[in-house]
């Protein structure tokens, strides 16, 4: 059934269709309409579990960890400061191997206050051991939530997943979304059935105090499972495609890349804009491609390394900035692409932060800049902020 809705509503429908059993959430712009929609669904009896109003994001995550230990499927939504407040419990969910799924409507971190789209919040949490999936449009938000449960709850994975929608740009934009029917989702997504949960007949301590002699092994086990998740992600994406007719490239999608002179790698809602611009520029004979980073965690390093043989110049667009270094996705890309033998020329474009629009014209400017770099054979400026009011880039 096709319905026009925001990405926030699509997220709520994703949770409903995944038959989540315990939801705990705390309001924050631009996530709030997810919480509101879930509350409405709960009142109408459309949810299969409990919806609990908590007093903070920290408690939301804590509560879900508790419920997950009993074997309940859990969900929450947050943004920005709320995600930062959760920070401690994000590590906890990972270490405790709780396959919680959370949607983040990404938003700028204060101060000064700014409630708009910006990926600083989620980039800042990329090392907490959560899988991170970025969405390009509202349909992808819904589909990714359903897929995330299947990936996260797999006994070989058992790691939490963060689904990222760009705040406002997706969260408040109405688009057509194909709502799958419940039977198909039930068929696709098995019930959460963890290997270990609280069992009064087999009382265990979930956690424990681990000494240095075993600590590395505990970490290594997670590292291995995160690595193994890559295979699962690709598998689930394919399976989803078979069932619902939509796929998202698994970990990473190469669009117009095969014969490209330059490519731009990016994550989130700007991917669509980049694809559009890439098509239009190709009509004019400019061979530009787009690398859609679907999963930032686990980082699809093997796939990214393919770019070594594909293109001489790679641009990376970041909707956030890590002070003191560069964009987070930029760091990740370099980390992923480069081998001891080197890699392509690479440049970071930083923009679209705090709600500043990143338009097709900006995108075109970026591609032209990359083509110039290809022609000149060198990167003159590793990190460029686009647009800035001092005349760097262009301001529309």
């Amino acid at each position: 059934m096709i319905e026009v809705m925001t990405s926030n509503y699509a997220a709520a429908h994703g949770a409903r269709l995944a038959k989540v059993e315990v939801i705990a959430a705390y309001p924050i712009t631009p996530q709030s309409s997810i919480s509101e929609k879930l509350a409405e669904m709960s009142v109408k009896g459309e949810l299969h579990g409990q919806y609990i109003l908590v007093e903070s994001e920290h408690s939301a995550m804590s509560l879900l960890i508790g419920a997950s230990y009993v074997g309940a499927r859990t969900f929450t939504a947050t943004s920005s400061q709320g995600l930062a407040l959760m920070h401690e419990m994000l590590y906890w969910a990972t270490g405790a191997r709780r396959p919680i799924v959370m949607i983040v409507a990404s938003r700028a971190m204060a101060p000064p206050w700014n409630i708009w789209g910006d990926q600083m919040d989620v980039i800042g949490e990329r090392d907490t051991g959560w899988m991170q999936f970025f969405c390009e449009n509202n349909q992808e938000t819904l589909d990714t939530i359903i897929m995330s449960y299947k990936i996260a709850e797999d006994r070989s994975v058992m790691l939490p997943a963060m689904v990222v929608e760009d705040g406002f740009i997706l969260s408040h934009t109405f688009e057509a979304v194909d709502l799958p029917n419940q039977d198909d989702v039930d068929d696709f997504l098995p019930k959460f059935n963890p290997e270990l949960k609280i069992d009064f007949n087999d009382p265990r301590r979930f956690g424990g105090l681990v000494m240095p002699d075993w600590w590395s092994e505990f970490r290594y086990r997670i590292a291995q499972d995160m690595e193994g998740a890559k295979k699962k992600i690709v598998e689930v994406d394919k399976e989803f495609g078979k069932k619902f007719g939509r796929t998202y490239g698994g970990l990473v999608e190469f669009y117009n890349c095969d014969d490209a002179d330059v490519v731009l790698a990016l994550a989130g809602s700007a991917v669509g804009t980049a694809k559009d611009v890439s098509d239009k520029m190709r009509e004019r004979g400019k061979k530009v491609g787009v690398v859609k980073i679907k999963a930032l965690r686990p980082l699809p390093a093997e796939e990214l390394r393919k770019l070594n043989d594909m293109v001489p110049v790679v641009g990376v667009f970041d909707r956030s900035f890590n002070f003191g270094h560069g964009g987070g996705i930029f760091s990740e890309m370099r980390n992923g692409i480069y081998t001891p033998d080197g890699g392509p020329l690479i440049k970071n474009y930083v923009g679209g932060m705090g709600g500043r629009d990143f338009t097709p014209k900006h995108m075109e400017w970026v591609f032209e800049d990359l083509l110039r770099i290809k022609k000149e054979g060198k990167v003159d400026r590793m990190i460029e902020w686009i647009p800035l009011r001092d005349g760097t880039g262009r301001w529309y």
Partner: protein
Amino acid sequence: MHGRGGQGAVVASEMLARAAVKDGMHASAFPFFGVERRGCPVTAFCRIDDKPIRIHAGIYEPDYVIVLDPGLMTLVDVFQGLKPDGKILINTTRTREELAIKGPNKVVTVDATGIALKRGLGSETAPIVNTAIIGAFVKMFPKISIDSLLESVREAAPVKKEENASAAKDAYEITKEV
């Protein structure tokens, strides 16, 4: 789509998107992401295409501009970016000349306020004109059928669904095609 906080510009853009999708097109609708407060000028956008819409960015060169509150025209340059062959729809009882509109753009007017009040939508001081004005708009943009629009209005209107649908229909009927 230019309006004031509380007039329903955002919901109207959503209704247009819904109707376009019903008629087999692709659409996306979104507000200007600001801090919306009742009464302050707000802008909402709707992008409609036969092909899937992948762009997630604002609209700077619209084909159509809809003005929910003519009082805004002295505050906001509603013509900004409007293509030379673009059309503007204004909620007013005045004429193009009375509004002193120059330039090449086609101007369509509709008394959405009168229609809204007749249908009991809002009050004299704060009429809810969004559904009436999009009724007029689909007359200008026949790729969206009035039936799909009315269905969308009924779906998305938070209250007074029938009154809102009637307002859209009234406006549709009195607006002349251009």
